[in-house]
Protein backbone atom coordinates (compact mmCIF):
# COMPACT_ATOMS: atom_id res chain seq x y z
CA UNK A 1 0.00 0.00 0.00
CA UNK A 2 1.28 3.43 -0.80
CA UNK A 3 0.20 6.95 -0.18
CA UNK A 4 -0.60 9.16 -3.20
CA UNK A 5 -2.35 6.43 -5.16
CA UNK A 6 -5.79 6.78 -6.63
CA UNK A 7 -8.94 4.72 -6.49
CA UNK A 8 -8.87 2.36 -9.43
CA UNK A 9 -12.33 0.88 -9.06
CA UNK A 10 -15.66 2.30 -8.08
CA UNK A 11 -16.61 1.51 -4.49
CA UNK A 12 -19.76 -0.33 -5.51
CA UNK A 13 -17.79 -2.63 -7.80
CA UNK A 14 -15.34 -3.42 -5.01
CA UNK A 15 -18.20 -3.87 -2.60
CA UNK A 16 -19.63 -6.53 -4.88
CA UNK A 17 -16.29 -8.32 -5.14
CA UNK A 18 -15.59 -8.38 -1.42
CA UNK A 19 -19.22 -9.11 -0.68
CA UNK A 20 -18.75 -12.47 -2.39
CA UNK A 21 -15.81 -13.30 -0.17
CA UNK A 22 -17.74 -12.02 2.82
CA UNK A 23 -20.49 -14.57 2.36
CA UNK A 24 -17.93 -17.37 2.37
CA UNK A 25 -16.09 -16.04 5.42
CA UNK A 26 -19.30 -15.47 7.38
CA UNK A 27 -20.01 -19.20 7.33
CA UNK A 28 -16.94 -19.76 9.50
CA UNK A 29 -17.35 -16.71 11.75
CA UNK A 30 -18.90 -18.55 14.69
CA UNK A 31 -16.68 -21.65 14.43
CA UNK A 32 -13.64 -19.36 14.48
CA UNK A 33 -15.03 -17.36 17.39
CA UNK A 34 -15.78 -20.55 19.30
CA UNK A 35 -12.37 -22.06 18.64
CA UNK A 36 -13.71 -24.88 16.47
CA UNK A 37 -11.49 -23.85 13.59
CA UNK A 38 -8.09 -22.15 13.55
CA UNK A 39 -7.18 -19.07 11.58
CA UNK A 40 -4.38 -20.96 9.88
CA UNK A 41 -6.85 -23.56 8.69
CA UNK A 42 -9.30 -20.98 7.46
CA UNK A 43 -6.61 -18.93 5.72
CA UNK A 44 -5.46 -22.02 3.89
CA UNK A 45 -8.96 -22.57 2.56
CA UNK A 46 -9.76 -19.09 1.23
CA UNK A 47 -8.93 -17.81 -2.22
CA UNK A 48 -5.18 -17.03 -2.16
CA UNK A 49 -5.92 -13.91 -4.20
CA UNK A 50 -7.69 -12.49 -1.18
CA UNK A 51 -4.60 -13.04 0.96
CA UNK A 52 -2.46 -11.13 -1.55
CA UNK A 53 -4.73 -8.11 -1.77
CA UNK A 54 -2.67 -4.97 -1.41
CA UNK A 55 0.59 -6.58 -2.46
CA UNK A 56 2.60 -4.65 -5.05
CA UNK A 57 1.55 -5.73 -8.55
CA UNK A 58 4.98 -7.26 -9.26
CA UNK A 59 4.36 -9.75 -6.46
CA UNK A 60 0.79 -10.44 -7.38
CA UNK A 61 0.58 -11.92 -10.86
CA UNK A 62 -2.88 -13.38 -10.21
CA UNK A 63 -4.87 -10.61 -8.53
CA UNK A 64 -8.57 -10.42 -7.89
CA UNK A 65 -10.52 -8.85 -10.71
CA UNK A 66 -13.55 -6.65 -11.18
CA UNK A 67 -15.11 -6.56 -14.63
CA UNK A 68 -12.00 -8.26 -15.95
CA UNK A 69 -9.66 -5.64 -14.53
CA UNK A 70 -7.14 -6.42 -11.80
CA UNK A 71 -7.76 -5.21 -8.27
CA UNK A 72 -4.46 -4.42 -6.61
CA UNK A 73 -5.88 -2.49 -3.68
CA UNK A 74 -3.15 0.11 -3.56
CA UNK A 75 -5.22 2.92 -2.14
CA UNK A 76 -6.79 3.55 1.24
CA UNK A 77 -10.06 4.43 -0.46
CA UNK A 78 -10.16 0.87 -1.78
CA UNK A 79 -9.05 -0.62 1.50
CA UNK A 80 -11.83 0.89 3.54
CA UNK A 81 -14.39 -0.65 1.19
CA UNK A 82 -12.78 -4.07 1.56
CA UNK A 83 -12.45 -3.70 5.29
CA UNK A 84 -16.09 -2.81 5.77
CA UNK A 85 -17.25 -5.74 3.67
CA UNK A 86 -14.97 -8.30 5.27
CA UNK A 87 -15.62 -7.03 8.80
CA UNK A 88 -19.29 -7.51 8.01
CA UNK A 89 -18.38 -11.17 7.58
CA UNK A 90 -15.99 -11.55 10.50
CA UNK A 91 -13.85 -8.74 11.82
CA UNK A 92 -11.64 -11.16 13.70
CA UNK A 93 -10.73 -13.07 10.57
CA UNK A 94 -10.21 -9.84 8.67
CA UNK A 95 -7.68 -8.75 11.28
CA UNK A 96 -5.84 -11.99 10.73
CA UNK A 97 -5.44 -11.38 7.01
CA UNK A 98 -1.77 -10.74 6.27
CA UNK A 99 -2.49 -7.49 4.42
CA UNK A 100 -4.42 -5.96 7.24
CA UNK A 101 -1.24 -5.76 9.31
CA UNK A 102 -0.09 -2.28 10.18
CA UNK A 103 3.40 -3.43 9.25
CA UNK A 104 2.61 -2.59 5.66
CA UNK A 105 3.61 1.05 5.99
CA UNK A 106 7.01 0.14 7.42
CA UNK A 107 7.58 -2.38 4.66
CA UNK A 108 6.50 -0.04 1.89
CA UNK A 109 8.13 3.14 3.08
CA UNK A 110 11.00 2.31 5.40
CA UNK A 111 12.35 -0.95 4.01
CA UNK A 112 15.20 -0.83 1.53
CA UNK A 113 14.04 -1.91 -1.93
CA UNK A 114 15.87 -5.23 -1.65
CA UNK A 115 14.43 -5.95 1.79
CA UNK A 116 10.97 -5.08 0.55
CA UNK A 117 11.27 -7.40 -2.43
CA UNK A 118 12.57 -10.24 -0.27
CA UNK A 119 9.72 -9.76 2.13
CA UNK A 120 7.00 -9.91 -0.50
CA UNK A 121 8.63 -12.87 -2.20
CA UNK A 122 8.49 -14.69 1.13
CA UNK A 123 4.81 -14.05 1.77
CA UNK A 124 3.45 -14.10 -1.77
CA UNK A 125 2.57 -17.77 -2.05
CA UNK A 126 1.45 -18.94 1.35
CA UNK A 127 -0.28 -17.30 4.30
CA UNK A 128 2.29 -15.89 6.68
CA UNK A 129 1.67 -13.39 9.43
CA UNK A 130 3.54 -10.32 10.53
CA UNK A 131 3.02 -8.43 13.76
CA UNK A 132 3.36 -4.75 14.58
CA UNK A 133 4.16 -4.26 18.24
CA UNK A 134 3.77 -0.86 19.84
CA UNK A 135 1.36 -1.30 22.74
CA UNK A 136 2.69 -2.04 26.20
CA UNK A 137 0.89 -3.15 29.35
CA UNK A 138 1.63 0.04 31.27
CA UNK A 139 1.53 2.64 28.49
CA UNK A 140 -0.99 1.56 25.89
CA UNK A 141 -0.23 2.84 22.42
CA UNK A 142 1.64 5.95 23.53
CA UNK A 143 5.01 5.65 21.80
CA UNK A 144 6.60 8.21 24.08
CA UNK A 145 5.83 6.15 27.17
CA UNK A 146 7.52 3.09 25.74
CA UNK A 147 9.66 1.02 28.11
CA UNK A 148 10.82 -1.78 25.84
CA UNK A 149 14.51 -1.12 25.55
CA UNK A 150 17.18 -1.63 22.92
CA UNK A 151 20.64 -1.77 24.49
CA UNK A 152 23.98 -1.89 22.70
CA UNK A 153 25.86 -5.18 23.06
CA UNK A 154 29.12 -5.06 21.10
CA UNK A 155 28.28 -4.94 17.39
CA UNK A 156 24.65 -5.78 18.01
CA UNK A 157 21.83 -4.98 20.43
CA UNK A 158 19.65 -6.65 23.05
CA UNK A 159 15.89 -6.16 23.24
CA UNK A 160 14.06 -6.31 26.56
CA UNK A 161 10.45 -5.62 27.44
CA UNK A 162 6.84 -6.72 27.04
CA UNK A 163 4.24 -5.89 24.42
CA UNK A 164 0.54 -6.62 24.78
CA UNK A 165 -2.57 -6.78 22.60
CA UNK A 166 -0.50 -7.38 19.48
CA UNK A 167 -2.52 -8.77 16.57
CA UNK A 168 -1.13 -11.99 15.06
CA UNK A 169 1.67 -11.82 17.61
CA UNK A 170 1.83 -15.49 18.47
CA UNK A 171 1.42 -16.67 14.86
CA UNK A 172 3.71 -14.17 13.16
CA UNK A 173 6.83 -15.45 11.43
CA UNK A 174 8.37 -12.03 11.88
CA UNK A 175 7.36 -8.76 13.47
CA UNK A 176 8.34 -5.18 14.07
CA UNK A 177 8.84 -4.18 17.65
CA UNK A 178 8.97 -0.56 18.72
CA UNK A 179 11.43 0.18 21.47
CA UNK A 180 13.55 2.90 22.99
CA UNK A 181 17.31 3.06 22.72
CA UNK A 182 18.70 2.70 26.21
CA UNK A 183 19.37 6.09 27.74
CA UNK A 184 17.64 8.00 24.95
CA UNK A 185 14.75 10.31 25.69
CA UNK A 186 12.09 11.88 23.50
CA UNK A 187 10.67 10.72 20.20
CA UNK A 188 13.99 10.40 18.39
CA UNK A 189 15.07 7.65 20.76
CA UNK A 190 12.34 5.35 19.42
CA UNK A 191 13.25 2.60 16.93
CA UNK A 192 11.39 -0.22 15.22
CA UNK A 193 13.34 -3.48 15.06
CA UNK A 194 12.69 -6.75 13.30
CA UNK A 195 12.25 -9.84 15.48
CA UNK A 196 11.80 -13.30 14.06
CA UNK A 197 9.66 -16.01 15.60
CA UNK A 198 11.80 -18.51 17.46
CA UNK A 199 14.52 -16.02 18.34
CA UNK A 200 16.23 -16.84 21.63
CA UNK A 201 14.54 -14.96 24.46
CA UNK A 202 11.37 -14.23 22.48
CA UNK A 203 8.15 -15.66 23.83
CA UNK A 204 4.62 -15.07 22.53
CA UNK A 205 1.31 -16.08 24.03
CA UNK A 206 -2.13 -15.56 22.58
CA UNK A 207 -4.58 -13.76 24.87
CA UNK A 208 -8.11 -14.99 25.40
CA UNK A 209 -10.20 -11.98 24.45
CA UNK A 210 -13.91 -11.21 24.66
CA UNK A 211 -14.16 -10.98 20.90
CA UNK A 212 -12.13 -10.49 17.72
CA UNK A 213 -10.64 -13.87 18.40
CA UNK A 214 -9.39 -14.37 14.88
CA UNK A 215 -7.09 -11.40 15.39
CA UNK A 216 -4.97 -13.45 17.75
CA UNK A 217 -4.15 -10.61 20.12
CA UNK A 218 -1.04 -11.67 21.98
CA UNK A 219 1.43 -10.80 24.65
CA UNK A 220 5.04 -10.75 23.50
CA UNK A 221 7.97 -10.94 25.87
CA UNK A 222 11.54 -10.11 24.97
CA UNK A 223 14.32 -11.22 27.28
CA UNK A 224 17.69 -10.19 25.90
CA UNK A 225 16.65 -10.95 22.33
CA UNK A 226 19.55 -10.32 19.95
CA UNK A 227 18.95 -7.66 17.32
CA UNK A 228 21.48 -6.69 14.64
CA UNK A 229 22.02 -3.35 12.98
CA UNK A 230 20.32 -4.76 9.88
CA UNK A 231 17.19 -5.39 11.92
CA UNK A 232 16.66 -1.71 12.65
CA UNK A 233 13.85 -0.68 10.34
CA UNK A 234 14.61 2.33 8.18
CA UNK A 235 18.18 2.56 9.43
CA UNK A 236 19.18 4.43 6.28
CA UNK A 237 16.55 7.06 6.93
CA UNK A 238 17.06 9.89 9.37
CA UNK A 239 15.86 9.18 12.90
CA UNK A 240 13.22 11.84 12.33
CA UNK A 241 11.61 9.70 9.61
CA UNK A 242 11.68 6.28 11.27
CA UNK A 243 10.87 4.89 14.73
CA UNK A 244 8.42 7.27 16.38
CA UNK A 245 7.41 8.81 13.07
CA UNK A 246 6.77 5.34 11.65
CA UNK A 247 4.50 4.40 14.56
CA UNK A 248 2.51 7.64 14.58
CA UNK A 249 2.16 7.74 10.80
CA UNK A 250 1.03 4.13 10.70
CA UNK A 251 -1.65 4.77 13.28
CA UNK A 252 -2.85 7.85 11.42
CA UNK A 253 -3.01 5.99 8.12
CA UNK A 254 -4.79 2.98 9.52
CA UNK A 255 -7.43 4.66 11.68
CA UNK A 256 -9.94 5.10 8.83
CA UNK A 257 -9.53 1.36 8.25
CA UNK A 258 -10.25 0.62 11.89
CA UNK A 259 -13.32 2.79 11.48
CA UNK A 260 -14.31 0.83 8.38
CA UNK A 261 -14.08 -2.43 10.31
CA UNK A 262 -16.24 -1.04 13.12
CA UNK A 263 -18.68 0.16 10.47
CA UNK A 264 -18.77 -3.31 8.97
CA UNK A 265 -19.81 -4.76 12.31
CA UNK A 266 -22.49 -2.10 12.77
CA UNK A 267 -23.86 -2.98 9.37
CA UNK A 268 -23.63 -6.70 10.05
CA UNK A 269 -25.74 -6.29 13.19
CA UNK A 270 -28.19 -4.06 11.35
CA UNK A 271 -28.56 -6.50 8.44
CA UNK A 272 -28.94 -9.41 10.83
CA UNK A 273 -31.79 -7.78 12.73
CA UNK A 274 -33.46 -6.59 9.54
CA UNK A 275 -33.51 -10.23 8.53
CA UNK A 276 -34.93 -11.32 11.86
CA UNK A 277 -37.48 -8.52 12.17
CA UNK A 278 -38.99 -8.20 8.72
CA UNK A 279 -42.06 -6.37 10.02
CA UNK A 280 -40.84 -4.29 12.95
CA UNK A 281 -43.21 -2.16 14.99
CA UNK A 282 -43.05 1.60 14.60
CA UNK A 283 -40.54 2.15 17.41
CA UNK A 284 -38.17 -0.54 16.18
CA UNK A 285 -38.62 0.65 12.59
CA UNK A 286 -37.61 4.18 13.59
CA UNK A 287 -34.59 2.84 15.48
CA UNK A 288 -33.52 0.78 12.50
CA UNK A 289 -33.93 3.73 10.17
CA UNK A 290 -31.87 5.95 12.44
CA UNK A 291 -29.08 3.36 12.62
CA UNK A 292 -29.14 2.97 8.86
CA UNK A 293 -28.79 6.74 8.49
CA UNK A 294 -25.77 6.70 10.78
CA UNK A 295 -24.18 3.82 8.88
CA UNK A 296 -24.50 5.82 5.68
CA UNK A 297 -23.21 8.98 7.31
CA UNK A 298 -20.21 7.46 9.09
CA UNK A 299 -19.25 5.70 5.87
CA UNK A 300 -19.06 9.09 4.14
CA UNK A 301 -16.71 10.34 6.87
CA UNK A 302 -14.48 7.25 6.66
CA UNK A 303 -14.26 7.48 2.89
CA UNK A 304 -13.50 11.19 3.13
CA UNK A 305 -10.64 10.52 5.54
CA UNK A 306 -9.31 7.72 3.32
CA UNK A 307 -9.46 9.88 0.21
CA UNK A 308 -7.56 12.61 2.03
CA UNK A 309 -4.78 10.15 2.80
CA UNK A 310 -4.65 8.96 -0.80
CA UNK A 311 -4.43 12.58 -1.94
CA UNK A 312 -1.45 13.13 0.34
CA UNK A 313 -3.52 15.48 2.49
CA UNK A 314 -4.29 13.11 5.31
CA UNK A 315 -3.99 14.27 8.83
CA UNK A 316 -4.22 12.36 12.04
CA UNK A 317 -7.12 14.22 13.54
CA UNK A 318 -9.49 13.59 10.65
CA UNK A 319 -8.54 9.90 10.76
CA UNK A 320 -9.26 9.95 14.48
CA UNK A 321 -12.68 11.51 13.87
CA UNK A 322 -13.52 8.70 11.46
CA UNK A 323 -12.46 6.10 13.97
CA UNK A 324 -14.29 7.65 16.92
CA UNK A 325 -17.54 8.02 14.98
CA UNK A 326 -17.41 4.45 13.71
CA UNK A 327 -16.55 2.90 17.05
CA UNK A 328 -19.46 4.70 18.70
CA UNK A 329 -21.76 3.55 15.95
CA UNK A 330 -20.62 -0.08 16.26
CA UNK A 331 -21.17 -0.11 20.00
CA UNK A 332 -24.50 1.72 19.80
CA UNK A 333 -25.68 -0.50 16.98
CA UNK A 334 -24.84 -3.85 18.53
CA UNK A 335 -26.14 -2.84 21.95
CA UNK A 336 -29.40 -1.42 20.62
CA UNK A 337 -30.05 -4.25 18.22
CA UNK A 338 -29.34 -6.95 20.75
CA UNK A 339 -31.94 -5.33 22.98
CA UNK A 340 -34.37 -5.26 20.09
CA UNK A 341 -34.07 -9.02 19.75
CA UNK A 342 -35.12 -9.57 23.35
CA UNK A 343 -33.60 -10.51 26.69
CA UNK A 344 -32.23 -13.88 25.61
CA UNK A 345 -30.83 -12.63 22.32
CA UNK A 346 -27.27 -13.64 23.20
CA UNK A 347 -28.39 -17.26 23.54
CA UNK A 348 -30.81 -17.31 20.65
CA UNK A 349 -28.65 -15.29 18.26
CA UNK A 350 -25.01 -16.17 18.95
CA UNK A 351 -23.87 -14.26 15.89
CA UNK A 352 -25.29 -11.07 17.38
CA UNK A 353 -23.49 -11.86 20.61
CA UNK A 354 -20.29 -12.17 18.61
CA UNK A 355 -20.90 -8.86 16.83
CA UNK A 356 -21.35 -7.16 20.19
CA UNK A 357 -18.17 -8.72 21.56
CA UNK A 358 -16.22 -7.81 18.44
CA UNK A 359 -17.52 -4.23 18.37
CA UNK A 360 -16.08 -3.48 21.80
CA UNK A 361 -12.58 -4.35 20.68
CA UNK A 362 -12.21 -1.43 18.28
CA UNK A 363 -12.32 1.06 21.13
CA UNK A 364 -8.80 -0.01 22.05
CA UNK A 365 -7.19 -0.13 18.63
CA UNK A 366 -4.79 2.66 17.67
CA UNK A 367 -5.74 4.64 20.73
CA UNK A 368 -8.94 4.72 22.75
CA UNK A 369 -11.69 7.20 22.00
CA UNK A 370 -10.96 9.58 24.86
CA UNK A 371 -7.41 9.97 23.61
CA UNK A 372 -8.62 10.35 20.02
CA UNK A 373 -11.03 13.11 21.09
CA UNK A 374 -8.06 15.01 22.50
CA UNK A 375 -6.19 14.56 19.24
CA UNK A 376 -9.17 15.70 17.20
CA UNK A 377 -9.44 18.81 19.38
CA UNK A 378 -5.73 19.46 19.02
CA UNK A 379 -5.97 19.30 15.24
CA UNK A 380 -9.14 21.35 15.15
CA UNK A 381 -7.86 24.10 17.43
CA UNK A 382 -4.51 24.32 15.65
CA UNK A 383 -6.17 24.46 12.21
CA UNK A 384 -4.73 21.17 11.04
CA UNK A 385 -8.00 19.30 10.97
CA UNK A 386 -9.15 19.70 7.40
CA UNK A 387 -7.30 18.77 4.23
CA UNK A 388 -5.52 21.83 2.93
CA UNK A 389 -8.24 22.94 0.50
CA UNK A 390 -10.75 23.28 3.32
CA UNK A 391 -11.55 26.58 5.00
CA UNK A 392 -10.32 26.71 8.56
CA UNK A 393 -11.93 28.71 11.34
Amino acid sequence: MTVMTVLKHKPDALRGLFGEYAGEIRRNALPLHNGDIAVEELAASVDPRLLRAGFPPEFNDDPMTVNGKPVHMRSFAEFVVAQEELAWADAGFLLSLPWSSMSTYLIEVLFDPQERDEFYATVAHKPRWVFFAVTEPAHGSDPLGMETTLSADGDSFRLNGTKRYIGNGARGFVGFVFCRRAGATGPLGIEAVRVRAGADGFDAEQLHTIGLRGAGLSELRFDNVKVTEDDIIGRRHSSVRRGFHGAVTTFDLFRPGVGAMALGIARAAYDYVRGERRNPGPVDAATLESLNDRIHSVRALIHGAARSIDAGKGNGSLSSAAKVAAVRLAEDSTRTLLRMLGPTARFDHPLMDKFDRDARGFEFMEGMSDIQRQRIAQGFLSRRFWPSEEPAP
Partner: protein
Amino acid sequence: MTTDTTLVAVRDLPKCRGTALAHGLEQALAELHQRVRSTTALVGQHGYSMLPPSLRDLLPTSSEIIGTQATDTGELIIARSGPGSGESSAPWWTGVAWIRLGGVERLNKQATDRLTGRKVQGRPTITLPLVRASVGDVAAAIAEARYLLADTPDAGIPRIQSRFDEIVDVAVRTSLKLFGASGYVVGPPSNLAYAITRLGEVYAGIDQKRIR
Protein backbone atom coordinates in the same frame (compact mmCIF):
# COMPACT_ATOMS: atom_id res chain seq x y z
CA MET B 1 -37.80 19.86 -6.20
CA THR B 2 -36.58 22.64 -8.38
CA THR B 3 -33.41 22.22 -10.30
CA ASP B 4 -33.37 25.65 -11.92
CA THR B 5 -29.72 26.17 -11.21
CA THR B 6 -26.63 25.85 -13.29
CA LEU B 7 -24.31 22.98 -12.57
CA VAL B 8 -21.51 25.39 -11.80
CA ALA B 9 -23.59 27.19 -9.19
CA VAL B 10 -24.58 23.95 -7.49
CA ARG B 11 -21.02 22.74 -7.45
CA ASP B 12 -20.07 25.93 -5.66
CA LEU B 13 -22.66 25.60 -2.92
CA PRO B 14 -20.07 24.40 -0.37
CA LYS B 15 -18.49 27.84 -0.63
CA CYS B 16 -21.45 29.19 1.32
CA ARG B 17 -20.07 27.30 4.30
CA GLY B 18 -16.90 29.39 4.26
CA THR B 19 -18.95 32.57 4.00
CA ALA B 20 -21.08 31.61 6.99
CA LEU B 21 -17.94 30.78 8.92
CA ALA B 22 -16.17 34.01 8.09
CA HIS B 23 -19.01 36.51 7.82
CA GLY B 24 -22.15 35.05 9.35
CA LEU B 25 -25.50 33.73 8.24
CA GLU B 26 -26.93 36.82 6.54
CA GLN B 27 -24.13 37.17 4.04
CA ALA B 28 -24.07 33.43 3.41
CA LEU B 29 -27.79 33.29 2.68
CA ALA B 30 -27.52 36.23 0.32
CA GLU B 31 -24.69 34.43 -1.46
CA LEU B 32 -26.74 31.26 -1.62
CA HIS B 33 -29.52 33.12 -3.37
CA GLN B 34 -27.02 34.47 -5.88
CA ARG B 35 -25.95 30.92 -6.64
CA VAL B 36 -29.35 29.21 -6.70
CA ARG B 37 -31.44 32.09 -8.08
CA SER B 38 -34.76 30.48 -7.32
CA THR B 39 -37.35 32.72 -5.71
CA THR B 40 -39.72 29.86 -5.00
CA ALA B 41 -37.00 28.13 -2.99
CA LEU B 42 -36.90 31.05 -0.60
CA VAL B 43 -40.12 29.81 0.95
CA GLY B 44 -39.80 26.51 2.75
CA GLN B 45 -42.13 23.61 2.17
CA HIS B 46 -44.16 24.57 5.23
CA GLY B 47 -44.66 28.19 4.13
CA TYR B 48 -42.02 29.89 6.26
CA SER B 49 -38.96 31.85 5.19
CA MET B 50 -35.89 32.96 7.10
CA LEU B 51 -33.76 35.34 5.12
CA PRO B 52 -31.56 38.40 5.34
CA PRO B 53 -33.56 41.63 5.01
CA SER B 54 -31.88 42.24 1.64
CA LEU B 55 -33.94 39.42 0.11
CA ARG B 56 -37.26 40.58 1.54
CA ASP B 57 -38.52 41.99 -1.77
CA LEU B 58 -38.10 38.62 -3.47
CA LEU B 59 -40.73 36.94 -1.30
CA PRO B 60 -44.23 36.33 -2.74
CA THR B 61 -46.59 39.27 -2.38
CA SER B 62 -48.74 37.15 -0.08
CA SER B 63 -45.89 36.92 2.41
CA GLU B 64 -46.20 38.44 5.83
CA ILE B 65 -43.23 39.29 8.01
CA ILE B 66 -43.98 37.67 11.35
CA GLY B 67 -40.77 38.39 13.19
CA THR B 68 -37.03 38.45 13.20
CA GLN B 69 -34.32 36.12 14.38
CA ALA B 70 -31.22 37.79 15.72
CA THR B 71 -27.88 36.27 14.85
CA ASP B 72 -24.39 37.18 16.01
CA THR B 73 -23.95 39.52 13.06
CA GLY B 74 -27.37 41.07 12.60
CA GLU B 75 -30.78 39.57 12.04
CA LEU B 76 -32.84 37.49 9.68
CA ILE B 77 -36.44 38.19 8.86
CA ILE B 78 -39.02 35.47 9.37
CA ALA B 79 -41.95 35.45 6.97
CA ARG B 80 -44.99 33.29 6.40
CA SER B 81 -46.48 32.88 2.95
CA GLY B 82 -49.74 31.55 1.69
CA PRO B 83 -50.38 27.84 1.09
CA GLY B 84 -48.50 26.42 -1.82
CA SER B 85 -45.98 29.25 -1.96
CA GLY B 86 -43.05 27.10 -0.93
CA GLU B 87 -41.35 24.41 -2.88
CA SER B 88 -38.77 21.81 -2.00
CA SER B 89 -35.48 22.67 -3.57
CA ALA B 90 -32.58 20.31 -3.23
CA PRO B 91 -29.97 22.95 -4.16
CA TRP B 92 -31.46 25.42 -1.68
CA TRP B 93 -31.65 22.81 1.07
CA THR B 94 -28.07 21.77 0.33
CA GLY B 95 -26.89 25.37 0.41
CA VAL B 96 -28.69 26.01 3.69
CA ALA B 97 -27.10 22.85 5.06
CA TRP B 98 -23.61 24.11 4.13
CA ILE B 99 -24.45 27.45 5.73
CA ARG B 100 -25.62 25.78 8.92
CA LEU B 101 -22.39 23.80 8.97
CA GLY B 102 -20.35 26.97 8.58
CA GLY B 103 -22.48 28.53 11.29
CA VAL B 104 -21.68 25.72 13.69
CA GLU B 105 -17.99 26.16 12.98
CA ARG B 106 -18.36 29.88 13.61
CA LEU B 107 -20.13 29.24 16.90
CA ASN B 108 -17.52 26.71 17.97
CA LYS B 109 -14.70 29.08 17.06
CA GLN B 110 -16.23 31.76 19.25
CA ALA B 111 -16.59 29.27 22.09
CA THR B 112 -13.02 27.99 21.90
CA ASP B 113 -11.62 31.51 21.55
CA ARG B 114 -13.47 32.45 24.69
CA LEU B 115 -12.21 29.43 26.59
CA THR B 116 -8.66 30.19 25.55
CA GLY B 117 -8.90 33.44 27.47
CA ARG B 118 -10.55 32.01 30.59
CA LYS B 119 -8.91 30.07 33.40
CA VAL B 120 -9.87 27.37 35.88
CA GLN B 121 -7.52 27.05 38.85
CA GLY B 122 -4.91 28.96 36.93
CA ARG B 123 -5.12 26.85 33.77
CA PRO B 124 -6.65 28.04 30.51
CA THR B 125 -10.04 26.34 30.33
CA ILE B 126 -9.37 25.17 26.79
CA THR B 127 -6.55 22.95 28.06
CA LEU B 128 -8.81 20.89 30.33
CA PRO B 129 -9.12 17.36 28.91
CA LEU B 130 -12.89 17.16 29.33
CA VAL B 131 -13.31 20.47 27.52
CA ARG B 132 -11.02 19.32 24.74
CA ALA B 133 -12.97 16.08 24.46
CA SER B 134 -16.11 18.14 23.85
CA VAL B 135 -14.29 20.18 21.22
CA GLY B 136 -13.15 16.92 19.65
CA ASP B 137 -16.74 15.70 19.56
CA VAL B 138 -17.87 18.85 17.79
CA ALA B 139 -15.06 18.56 15.26
CA ALA B 140 -15.92 14.92 14.58
CA ALA B 141 -19.58 15.82 14.16
CA ILE B 142 -18.74 18.63 11.75
CA ALA B 143 -16.51 16.29 9.75
CA GLU B 144 -19.23 13.67 9.52
CA ALA B 145 -21.77 16.24 8.37
CA ARG B 146 -19.33 17.72 5.88
CA TYR B 147 -18.53 14.43 4.14
CA LEU B 148 -22.15 13.34 4.25
CA LEU B 149 -23.16 16.49 2.39
CA ALA B 150 -20.26 16.37 -0.04
CA ASP B 151 -20.92 12.75 -0.96
CA THR B 152 -24.66 13.04 -1.48
CA PRO B 153 -26.17 13.94 -4.84
CA ASP B 154 -29.49 15.79 -4.98
CA ALA B 155 -31.46 12.58 -5.32
CA GLY B 156 -30.04 11.29 -2.05
CA ILE B 157 -30.91 14.32 0.04
CA PRO B 158 -34.18 12.99 1.48
CA ARG B 159 -32.22 10.12 2.90
CA ILE B 160 -29.61 12.22 4.69
CA GLN B 161 -31.72 15.05 6.07
CA SER B 162 -32.61 13.41 9.34
CA ARG B 163 -29.04 12.38 10.13
CA PHE B 164 -27.62 15.72 9.05
CA ASP B 165 -30.05 17.58 11.30
CA GLU B 166 -29.18 15.28 14.19
CA ILE B 167 -25.45 15.87 13.79
CA VAL B 168 -25.83 19.63 13.51
CA ASP B 169 -28.10 19.68 16.55
CA VAL B 170 -25.51 17.84 18.63
CA ALA B 171 -22.72 20.13 17.40
CA VAL B 172 -24.74 23.29 18.11
CA ARG B 173 -25.76 22.21 21.60
CA THR B 174 -22.26 21.02 22.51
CA SER B 175 -20.71 24.24 21.22
CA LEU B 176 -23.19 26.37 23.10
CA LYS B 177 -22.49 24.44 26.32
CA LEU B 178 -18.84 25.38 25.95
CA PHE B 179 -19.89 28.97 26.65
CA GLY B 180 -21.09 27.94 30.08
CA ALA B 181 -23.94 29.94 31.58
CA SER B 182 -23.16 32.85 29.28
CA GLY B 183 -24.45 30.73 26.40
CA TYR B 184 -27.80 30.55 28.14
CA VAL B 185 -28.15 34.32 28.14
CA VAL B 186 -29.70 35.80 25.02
CA GLY B 187 -26.81 37.26 23.11
CA PRO B 188 -24.68 36.69 20.02
CA PRO B 189 -23.74 33.03 20.68
CA SER B 190 -27.21 31.86 21.66
CA ASN B 191 -28.73 33.90 18.83
CA LEU B 192 -26.42 32.27 16.32
CA ALA B 193 -27.14 28.82 17.75
CA TYR B 194 -30.87 29.36 17.64
CA ALA B 195 -30.71 30.76 14.11
CA ILE B 196 -28.80 27.69 12.89
CA THR B 197 -31.45 25.45 14.39
CA ARG B 198 -34.41 27.44 13.06
CA LEU B 199 -32.92 27.65 9.58
CA GLY B 200 -32.93 23.86 9.50
CA GLU B 201 -36.55 23.77 10.57
CA VAL B 202 -37.76 26.43 8.13
CA TYR B 203 -36.20 24.72 5.15
CA ALA B 204 -36.71 21.12 6.28
CA GLY B 205 -38.82 18.57 4.56
CA ILE B 206 -37.28 17.66 1.26
CA ASP B 207 -39.52 14.84 0.29
CA GLN B 208 -38.53 12.04 -2.06
CA LYS B 209 -41.95 12.17 -3.68
CA ARG B 210 -41.51 15.81 -4.53
CA ILE B 211 -38.20 15.50 -6.26
CA ARG B 212 -38.57 16.06 -9.93
